[in-house]
């Protein structure tokens, strides 16, 4: 094994009951994001920059529930949340209740860099974003037809009393309550690790609901000494089980490898709380862990010239990456951000 770590950018496009019709679009999106992140890493970019770039790419893609394409609250509005953690400096930035900007992940990074705090929410966060001169979009600009449709379906089901038979913890079981958060974990050539997670929450959430994504230890955690984790799935469940931190503590205190820790923590969570989810992990030696208890979770990472990806339970596809394709992608991403 060489001393210099091989850089990896591992991304997920959300865990949930993803319909078959959306599988291909999800896979395309995560593969592109993983390539963009990897491309940055092999050009001596930092892990922190790579996860931001990867997440930015998915925030722009309407197939993902983050940025453009975020799911809607009961009022039909978008309220986004995001978090980022730098495993080298242990600095963090988290935001919740963010409206009318394309890239909540960049707002989280700004909180990390420009404030003495870790976490800003709602009016305070949006005021800060204004002061930081982010480009403000017109209200409604982030809303897609698909998100509207999902809310309509959700409302119809509410009217029909569709949830009466369900326990409260099982709200994630409804396919219209999409909760497919996105996230990225990267290790750079210096061995630094960073994590970024971004989401629109769940369809039909009450305005003001805060999920697991912006909470350290739940949606995001990173420490160069152990590794980094980004999670996705039913927020209330992930929050109770502190999923990201459980995986890190398994690696730290139990000496488990990244895959075992990720798998065990996800399975324990669903066994105990019923709600489903998934997580991606890179440990300090660059080992990858991927697991989910939901029906599907799109994931991808590039290592050397091979793209690894999957979305079903036992998927692990490999594909040789065409460098020209990567260059054109990076150009597109550069322009739009």
């Amino acid at each position: 094994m060489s001393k210099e770590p091989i850089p990896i950018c591992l991304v997920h496009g959300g865990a949930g009951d993803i319909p078959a019709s959306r599988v291909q679009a999800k896979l395309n999106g995560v593969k592109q994001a993983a390539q963009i992140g990897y491309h940055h890493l092999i050009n001596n970019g930092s892990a922190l920059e790579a996860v931001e770039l990867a997440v930015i790419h998915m925030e722009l893609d309407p197939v993902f529930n983050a940025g453009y394409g975020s799911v809607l609250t009961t009022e039909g509005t978008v309220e986004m949340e995001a978090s980022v953690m730098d495993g080298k400096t242990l600095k963090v930035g988290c935001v919740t209740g963010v409206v009318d900007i394309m890239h909540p992940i960049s707002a989280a990074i700004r909180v990390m860099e420009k404030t003495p705090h870790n976490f800003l929410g709602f009016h305070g966060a949006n005021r800060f974003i204004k002061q930081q001169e982010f480009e403000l979009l017109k209200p409604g600009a982030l809303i897609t037809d698909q998100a509207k449709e999902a809310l309509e379906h959700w409302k119809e089901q509410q009217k029909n009393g569709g949830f009466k038979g369900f326990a409260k913890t099982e709200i994630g079981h409804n396919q219209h309550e999409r909760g497919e958060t996105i996230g990225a974990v990267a290790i750079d050539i210096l061995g630094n690790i960073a994590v970024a997670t971004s989401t629109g929450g769940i369809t039909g959430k009450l305005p003001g609901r805060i999920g697991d994504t912006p909470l350290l230890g739940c949606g995001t955690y990173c420490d160069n000494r152990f590794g980094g984790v980004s999670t996705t799935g039913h927020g209330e469940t992930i929050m109770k089980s502190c999923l990201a931190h459980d995986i890190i503590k398994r690696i730290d205190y139990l000496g488990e490898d990244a895959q075992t820790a990720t798998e065990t923590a996800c399975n324990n969570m669903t066994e105990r709380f019923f709600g489903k989810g998934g997580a991606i992990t890179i440990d300090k030696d660059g080992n990858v862990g991927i697991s989910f208890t939901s029906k599907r979770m799109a994931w991808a990472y590039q290592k050397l010239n091979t793209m690894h990806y999957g979305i079903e339970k036992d998927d692990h596809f490999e594909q040789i990456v065409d460098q020209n394709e990567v260059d054109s992608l990076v150009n597109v991403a550069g322009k739009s951000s």
Partner: protein
Amino acid sequence: MRFLTLISLLTLFSYSFGGNVTIICHGGAGSVAPSRFIGKYRGTVLAVQIGYNILKTNGTSLDAVEAAVRSMEVDEEFNAGYGSVLTSEGKVEMDACIMDGETMKVGAVTGVQNIFHTITLARKVMEKTRYNFLSPEGAMKLAKDEGFQFLPEGTLVTERAKLSLENWKRNQNQSLGEQVGEGGTVGCAAYDINGNLAAATSTGGLTGKMSGRIGDTPIVGGGTYADNKLGALSATGTGEVIMKSVLVYDILKRYEYKQISLQQAAQEACDDMTERYDDDGGVIGLDKDGNVAIGFSSPQMSWAYQNEPENVHYGIEHEISHIYNIAECKSKNCFQ
């Protein structure tokens, strides 16, 4: 059948020996001036007695921690409810979290204004909504729906809080950087007659914080956690580093994975946090059998616990513990 017998035996066991109900509370970690010790003692000792009385009359741990925290929320000695510290704009924005170790249900709120009992609002989130955590907008709407009494703007602002903010602003102007506050977050953990655990934490946050800043208190695993299988904990101190350390969850995982006592786990985790982040804090809690854990890396942390009818144990400095005899202190004022 054998299974049922086991259950009934266990139930019998817990009823016959389960009298050892316990509640422990803290009144904040930080650098507390000696002139303020008495006020902190009085408030924490009162809070645990209120909680203990509930536990002793077969009340739930959840009711006990809520009532104990409520008593500190109305006490201006503490940075929660009345007496909360102020944002840079002079406003009160409170955070709170409550968790039930039996059901693992949780309720948390942030940015709450103009109500006395943030902890009760957190409990409403737990009981009345499908969510764990509500923002200012969501929480205030729930408070309205639930018929909370809204106080006139500024009611929760005390002279002391105003002074702290002035001091903070002066220091900012002289670019002395972040001033370390006195803390004063309040929190409790309780173990009831059925062996159920609960934890609750309530705070006004940090003097001079930006409006909208969310600290560790409402973060599950950061400032508050309860799980009957492991233990219940509440943290206090510099919110930003407690959040980064995911302090109370870390302590429970040390207890579970490293198989050390909760007491040892609590002190180790606080020390490790301070070593790594150069900032301090503390925790109180109970393990799954109701054993007390107190750990802090700050100069002081006020705490008190009661696990017997006659006495309350309390303290604020490292390795110094006092006993408050309830009968004796009825006839004379023990805190003068």
